[in-house]
């Protein structure tokens, strides 16, 4: 159990170095949810489980930044980062902004939206080129 602010949470931490490359943290109670009008993929900084979104874990560090290795104690890293994630999650619900340090796209939802925008842009540019040259 963690109480990062006022709301207490029950968390589950899964770690098996033979199977996982990092601890998998789930928020068991109360379950996390998106802001009104948004989807689960829009919740920032998840290890998004596309097959079962409500079982998505938390993405707590940047592997490329070597911020965690199996030699690090979960109690000193993962647990503290989970408490911080929950703090920023509540602030995100309140303000609409993720106020914690992060890298890359904030959420899978934003990543997908950006990818979709890039594809639409490419198609429109391609159509524009064909029209200009005269379709074959």
């Amino acid at each position: 159990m963690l109480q990062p602010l006022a709301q207490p949470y029950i968390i589950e931490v899964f770690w098996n170095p033979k199977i996982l490359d990092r601890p998998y943290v789930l928020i068991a109670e109360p379950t996390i949810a998106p802001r009104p009008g948004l989807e689960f993929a829009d919740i920032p900084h998840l290890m998004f489980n596309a097959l079962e979104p409500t079982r998505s874990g938390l993405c707590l560090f940047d592997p490329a930044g070597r911020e965690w290795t199996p030699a690090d104690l979960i109690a000193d890293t993962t647990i503290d980062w989970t408490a911080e994630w929950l703090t920023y999650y509540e602030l995100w619900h309140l303000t609409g902004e993720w106020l914690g340090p992060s890298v890359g796209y904030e959420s899978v939802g934003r990543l997908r939206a950006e990818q979709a925008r890039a594809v639409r842009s490419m198609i429109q540019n391609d159509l524009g080129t064909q029209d200009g040259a005269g379709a074959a």
Partner: protein
Amino acid sequence: MSKFERFLTTAALDGVLLDIAIQIEPSHADRRITENRYRRLKEHLERPSSALAPYLKAGRHLIYAQGSVATSTTIINGADDDRFDIDAIVEMDVPAHWSEHDMQDILEKALQGFPGVVKIVRCTRCIQLQFPFMHMDVTVMDRARPLAVERAGTIPHAPDEGKSYRVASNPWGFTAWFRSVVGVGQDNFVEQLRKRRAISSRSRLRALDDMETKLAKAEQVDLPPMIPSAIDAQEAVALKLAKRYLNLRYEPLDRKRPPSIYLVKRMGTVGYVAEGLTGQLVVFAESTAAIMRQHLAAGTRPAEENPSYPPDKINDRWPAQGMDGRRDMQLFAEALEHLAQKLRRLARAPLTEIVAGMSELFGERVGAGLKKVLAEQFDTRAGSPPNQVQTGTGNVKAPALVKSSPDVRAVPRHNFHRLILDEDADDEA
């Protein structure tokens, strides 16, 4: 979750309530302007042309702050107007032939022409000076008849209609009692208050003229203080919150809320609650509601006295007599029970619910201000120092507010990331 209850704290809600209290209290600059208003009151009443001047004997009369300013519980009213309400006593030897109405008449005459006053209003027991963002209630206290208790006297009760009479009073003694029971505040609490004030205190009062501006800016004024030093005790802060809540709760009702002096007496009697500011408010609200319920069941009414001077009856005008009084006590009990229940719930609630709850209890603008304060406290995107976390509970503390302690440590540096767990796609995108 009940098996974990004994590990849970109210630290987060305590912090939020502190932030709220800072939004509704006068700033340090406001206090300096207020100090100057009292000084000007003294000068104005003592000027040679003042109607009171012939009766103010050097070394025999005193003009001083009482009420919320003296007990450090002044707040922005919040209900019908954004203003501070402060009180002053003119302690003097009233001529034996003066009636209660004479006391009011001459005080009202002496206050005419006070600089910066927008309006002067005659009330039953005081004359009210109305300034922008401030009302000052001035009361004459007669100490002509020697009394066994120092600084005790009588004040006039002079309604427009009905009987007038004298009321036993010792505001100086009451303030001394309250200040003695709460002290100057617990070290940790005072430090938290100081840190949060540095971030979000704001001033409201504007100097009336150049003289007030000059005095307000002066760091050292070679004049005796007119206002007692501030008390940063948990009890005083809880009183600010209780008063604000009750102001808003009673605003749409056609009934008077209990006088502030009764709330101060109750809080002083409750004493310091070690569990924190939330606990202080909950214990105050629940114990006072219980007292109201006991009186309702017994058909009696509260009869609190000034501990420094028992003839000074705190409940002489509230609750009302008879059935009106029962209604007064019922409403007050319901208001306090609502406050306690709400705080108990919010002590275990997410931030969105806390902010909505604070708006309901203490005002919409306060809720909006709180949202901004919380965002500023915890925004660590741009290279701020790391948050701190309490071991054992996972309680996260904003870097600017944390006090170094063996059970608190910095969160290891990291960046939140995201990835997709998908059977076919790459992990990292």
